[in-house]
């Protein structure tokens, strides 16, 4: 056992666990963050996706000890207070979940996509989500949601720029 120091959702958290424990179990069991889900433990399905250094990563495969000190963001860390992340809002607007078990991965992968490409084409959205599995068949709603999230962000961004410019 070791004392691990993790930067999760903007705060430092200390956890007693083996360094090679997959990050997923620490997030869920020690930090009670239920957003990331166990789907396969093999990095195949994407249900466990979190952001590490702003990039989508599969927490079921990543030893917790290897990400000490690096910023980790889970689904719970996307909203700013009561203000949902535009990706979350867009998933609500488009009814983009059935059982919702895969949705954590879809939202986190979409967040990472929009951070590196704010105006993705439909093909780019499909490519970015190609290794996130959904069994309910919610794919079309999810694509619409990512498209809408890009629009919501696009609308919000100029306002922010203007506000900053006025300051």
């Amino acid at each position, binding site marked *: *056992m070791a004392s691990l120091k993790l930067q999760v959702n903007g705060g430092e958290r200390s956890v007693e*666990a*083996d360094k090679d*424990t*997959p990050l997923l*179990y620490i997030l*869920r*069991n020690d930090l*009670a*963050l*239920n*957003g990331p*889900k*166990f*789907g*396969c*433990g*093999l990095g*195949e*399905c994407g*249900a466990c996706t979190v952001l590490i250094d702003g990039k989508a990563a599969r927490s079921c495969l990543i030893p917790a000890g290897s990400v000490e000190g690096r910023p980790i963001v*889970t*689904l*719970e860390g996307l*909203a700013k207070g009561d203000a*949902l992340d535009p990706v*979350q809002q867009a*998933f*609500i607007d488009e*009814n*983009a*979940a*059935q*059982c*919702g*078990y*895969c*949705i*954590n991965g879809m*939202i986190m992968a979409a967040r990472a996509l929009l951070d590196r490409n704010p105006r993705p084409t439909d093909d780019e*959205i*499909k*490519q970015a*989500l*190609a*290794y*996130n*599995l*959904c*069994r*309910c*068949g*919610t*794919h*079309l*709603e*999810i*694509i619409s949601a990512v498209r809408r999230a890009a629009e919501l962000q696009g609308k919000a961004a100029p306002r922010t720029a203007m506000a900053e410019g006025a300051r």
Partner: protein
Amino acid sequence: MSTPMHAPRLSRRQFLAATGSLAVTFTFPALVKRGMAAAGPATDAGSQLVDKNLVSAYVQLMADGTVRACNGHVDLGTGIRTAFTQIVAEELDVDMSQVTMVLGDTDVTPNQGPTIASNSVQASAVPMRKAAAQIRRHLLEEAARRHGVPVASLVTQNGQVLRASGERLASYGELIGNDAQSVPLAADVQLKPVSAYTVVGHPVPRIDIPAKVTGKLTYVHDMRVPGMLHARIVRPPYLGRDSGGMVASSLESVDESSVAKVRSLVKIVVIKDFVAVVARREEDAILASRLLKVKWKAPPALGSMASLTDALASQPSKQRPLSRKGDPDKALAAASHTVKATYVWPYQMHGSIGPSCGLADWKDQKLTVWSGSQNPHNLHSDIARMLDIPEDRIRVVRMEASGCYGRNCADDASADAAVLARELGQPVRVQYMREEEHAWEPKGTAQTMDVHGGIAGADSLVYRFGTRYPSNGSPLLASLLMGKEKAEATVFEMGDRTAIPQYRASDLDIVALDMAPIVRASWMRGVAALPNVFAHESFMDELAAKEGADPVEFRLRFMEDPRPIALLKAVAGKAGWQPRKAPAERPTKGIVKGRGVSQHQYVHGTFPGVGASWCAWVADVEVDLDTGKVRVTHVVAGQDCGLMINPDGVRHQVQGNVIQTVSRTLKESVSFDQNGVSSLEWGAYPILKFTDLPEVDVVLMPPDGNPPLGSGESASVPGPAAIANAIFDATGLRLREAPFTPERVRAALAAANKEAK
């Protein structure tokens, strides 16, 4: 028949005691007979702790004006919680935000049978709706009595009773006061006319989605209780097989020293072939399950599954005639065109993205089980039987879970947890690993359909059809592995779902060949009907091709019911269907395009069954003759389900079913080796990806005053044949065995080329 009021059980009293509530007695005749387990999942099996004849079983109005509504059906991710909330809010005239739905809690909700066949709105919402209507009626009468005015002069609106003028008389809460009341009710309570609906029939957002996108919804996988331990199960080598002499008799030894170094290990539990490791930390339970040295006897070899036609044909069966009419032999001899063929559907997985999980707590001689089960009341009585505990000392609480689309391992994980919680006297969480769910989930069974039919007259068919369905209800794994229940495969008579094609036929001979499962198998979306309709609708296309007829026109010639006729025309119209004949020439290379049609109603339940929605598909495909790869590029899927509670919800369900069905038809087939299932992760069992998606257009027929029919699942049923028919249109190749993988297409092409030489 009336059921007298009886002293409420403790749990019910606790449930009602929080505040004054209105509970109304309500009686209706029992709808189903007992003892029909063999006909499928018993609709009235399972625990019955809540009296179904009380209105309070369905709807409870609290003194603060809020409403608690209960239903025995559960939300499998399909949005039924939202639809039920709409139904109760509508009938009671309260805002949706005032209604809390409790689904599938055996202490609280009535047993309304398994949540199967997309039947929740069509059937299980009915008593709930009547209960709400009766409570509203009572409130009007009570207000009228207090104010000395005629009932007819009052109206209800948003939780209030008003004079027709709009003057407020009382809130619902004020009218029921603080004492629990009981009001007897006639079964013929008057329901609100559809024309007065303001909530039902209008699109509303799903109420569960905000919590799902913020990580706030507690799935069963997310449950944590104080002192909870983590378990993993170590499985025997006969992967995915649940009958035969090896079950519960294959364990030779367990070397406990092999896990001595696992730090938080608490216990190793061994009961015959049920082997579990329990630890305080989840990663330690996983580690222990991998390190534990267990010696098993080698299982007897599974018979070859290379040819499913042969495997199913050699499985003992019993013929069960379903429909016979005219003289099929004579009609076939005289028919102008005939088709004789065998269609094959593969073993498939439910493929829940989250492997099953269950949590159980054993405290003060009482067991609480949190489960993602589709059928919590059945699970309840199954666990009681397995552990020899009376039902009233067990409570099963249904939590949301990963979508299941039928009988996955949700019940098994829950039962495993129950066994372990009792063994340890502590709460135990059991999470299945990916390979475990892949191996042991009861598969959607392979099915073979033998067809011999033809055109018997100008507008009538002769049709001989036999269907083999080796599947049952999958008894709890723990019960089998512990030897509590004998591993003897029972026969379920479920192959008959939608076995009778809905076309005019002068001569019919339809039989089910009932048989026990070969490997662990149970119902999966479109149970038996989807393969049966694959055969019916491929056959219709083959016959149309032989006659040189357009597939849409050909079907219309034999259809009688105006609703599916209107639907097929609407779907063909939306797709811009151009009349077509069988391809004159067979292309041999490059990418070719084609389009196919298929339609049918989904008929489910004990034969002759209940009709759910009608559905029709037009599918467009591209086939690469060099690689054999088939892409479904566009689907127009239409559905007539009568009244839609939430039209948005129906549309999403249709889309979801279309995508899942394209996946099943093009890609999915479980593979086996001599031990059992060998597809043990997603690489070995690929499903449709974002990069494979078709465009989908949904056509929803106007309700036209028709009552609601089961929706969503119906939309999967015509899919496989529409795709097969489109492949034929593109290539001239007739594929009769799914999935339509590149290998199958190349093999069909090679066989056709050989034949042409």
